[in-house]
């Protein structure tokens, strides 16, 4: 298949919240194109008459009763946050 463009790679990176150097853009352009080529090969399989599914297992309808359990302690909740402020996780303001 046709190679991805550098702009497409930058767009995908932006959606994934990644910041790439120009060298990385070039590297991923080749790698991602290779992955797409590989996935493309799946298209050769004849799926005539096969129902589409999002799942590979036969399991369905796994439900849980509406019973509250024990939550994490606040210390645990905040433990992995890059920045905290009092009882809260502190994050950068994002403008729409």
């Amino acid at each position: 298949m046709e190679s991805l463009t550098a702009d497409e790679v930058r767009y995908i990176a932006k959606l994934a919240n990644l910041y790439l150097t120009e060298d990385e853009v070039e590297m991923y352009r080749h790698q991602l194109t290779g992955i797409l080529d590989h996935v493309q090969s799946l298209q050769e399989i004849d799926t005539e008459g096969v129902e589409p599914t999002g799942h590979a297992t036969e399991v369905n309808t796994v439900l849980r009763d509406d019973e509250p359990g024990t939550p994490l302690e606040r210390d645990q909740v905040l433990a992995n946050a890059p920045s905290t402020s009092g009882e809260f996780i502190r994050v950068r303001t994002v403008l729409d």
Partner: protein
Amino acid sequence: MTEYEAVIGLETHVQLNTKSKMFSNSSAEYQSADPNTIVDPVSLALPGTLPVVNRKAVESAIKIGLALGCQIASVTKFDRKQYNYPDLLKGYQISQFDEPICFEGHLELPGDNPRTVRINRVHMEEDVAKLVHVDGLAGKSGYALMDVNRAGVPLMEIVTEPDLRSAEDVVAYIESLQSIIRYLGVGTANMEEGSFRCDANISVRPKGTETLGTKVEVKNMNRISAVARAVTYEIERQIRAIETGERIVQETRGWNDGTGKTVVQRSKEEANDYRYFPEPDIPPLEIGREWVDELQAELPELPAQRKARLIADFGLSEYDARLITSTRTTAEYFEETIAVGPTGNAESRLQFAKETANWLNGEIARLMNVDSINDVSATKVKPLSLANLIARVMKRELNSNTGKQVFEEMWKTGAEPEAIIEERGLGMVSDTGALEPAVDQAIADNAAAVKDYLGGKETAVRFLMGQVMKATKGQADPPMVLKMLREKLETLKANAGE
């Protein structure tokens, strides 16, 4: 001049009042919890955690679907909606994309212009964490404080077809939907609290044409009055833009309640690319017919059905019946009052129902508003006490003015009307013997008014009547007083003419 019409579709997010979250078991009662105290590994998006669907949330979703006349999917699935925002810890929201749990329903708009609004879909998803923005000090950039408690609270998104035509339609739709959610008991549907949020897709077109104009999404409307103002503003803005030859851009605009305007938030060129795909952590959900039938059987009588029944059974006006049935508690209070009210002939029963409606929609609604009470059954006045009061006013033992005085005391103290009437020596005076001195006194003290009456100005009797009511502290039976005054004045007139 071209006449325009607005074409509006709504997307409403309704929080469910389940005890636990949509996909994990920490408490969903975030309104009353201290920050970051009802968080579990799933809602915190820790790696390796597994979301498991809350059965009650699915049942609530099905009930909402049934109440809106939707088809219920026999198989439904969840999908990942991916975008980056600090309040979304996983980097994706578990939602439903192409196989929503409910689809193709409708909601009837009440009022003078009844109409059917088609419901496109109802789907299940999860709420996000809550951010509180903090402004930076001079020159420094601000930041936000995040409380994860709300992350994972069950959220239903209800999407209409573009069947609404005005701000009034939008308000009627919202009120009806809120009412249905509360009747079902699946949520509080409170806009101010954020348990009911609404975004509007608005476009305008010349009236009579079929092609849709470019639509603009309006967000950030946090109360019903803001919705009405924002929709009105946006319709007018678009019409003005078209008339001045401006191009309408497909974009998202935010309502600013302070300035009373919508402002651009995001244009289509930079619109989100959500890259939905099936949520691999949650297997598909099969919904059997028996399950749906069971839930159908659990549905309460809904506001529209109840309204129709109150109109049919008690001859209420559409307006009265709509106000009474807008909340389940008020409708129940009304019917309980009727049930304990006096038995009588059909006519007096209808009259009693009408009076009860007047009290509920008038004085009681007013006092509930003053005292900020939402639930009439939480007030001090019980249906039986109200029924007694109304019966006394109908039997003319009290006039309507004294009735209100007695009611205010009942409202404050919860006392029975009989006790208040006795203690205060209230009660209507319609005994001619008791009224006669006051009537004579009024005639004796107000020669000018009497002269006016005798001179042909019959309205002067109203003034005299006011004097009698004042002298009897408002307790006299007004029609009786009027009759007595007229008789006495007519006698004077006849005597003067001789």
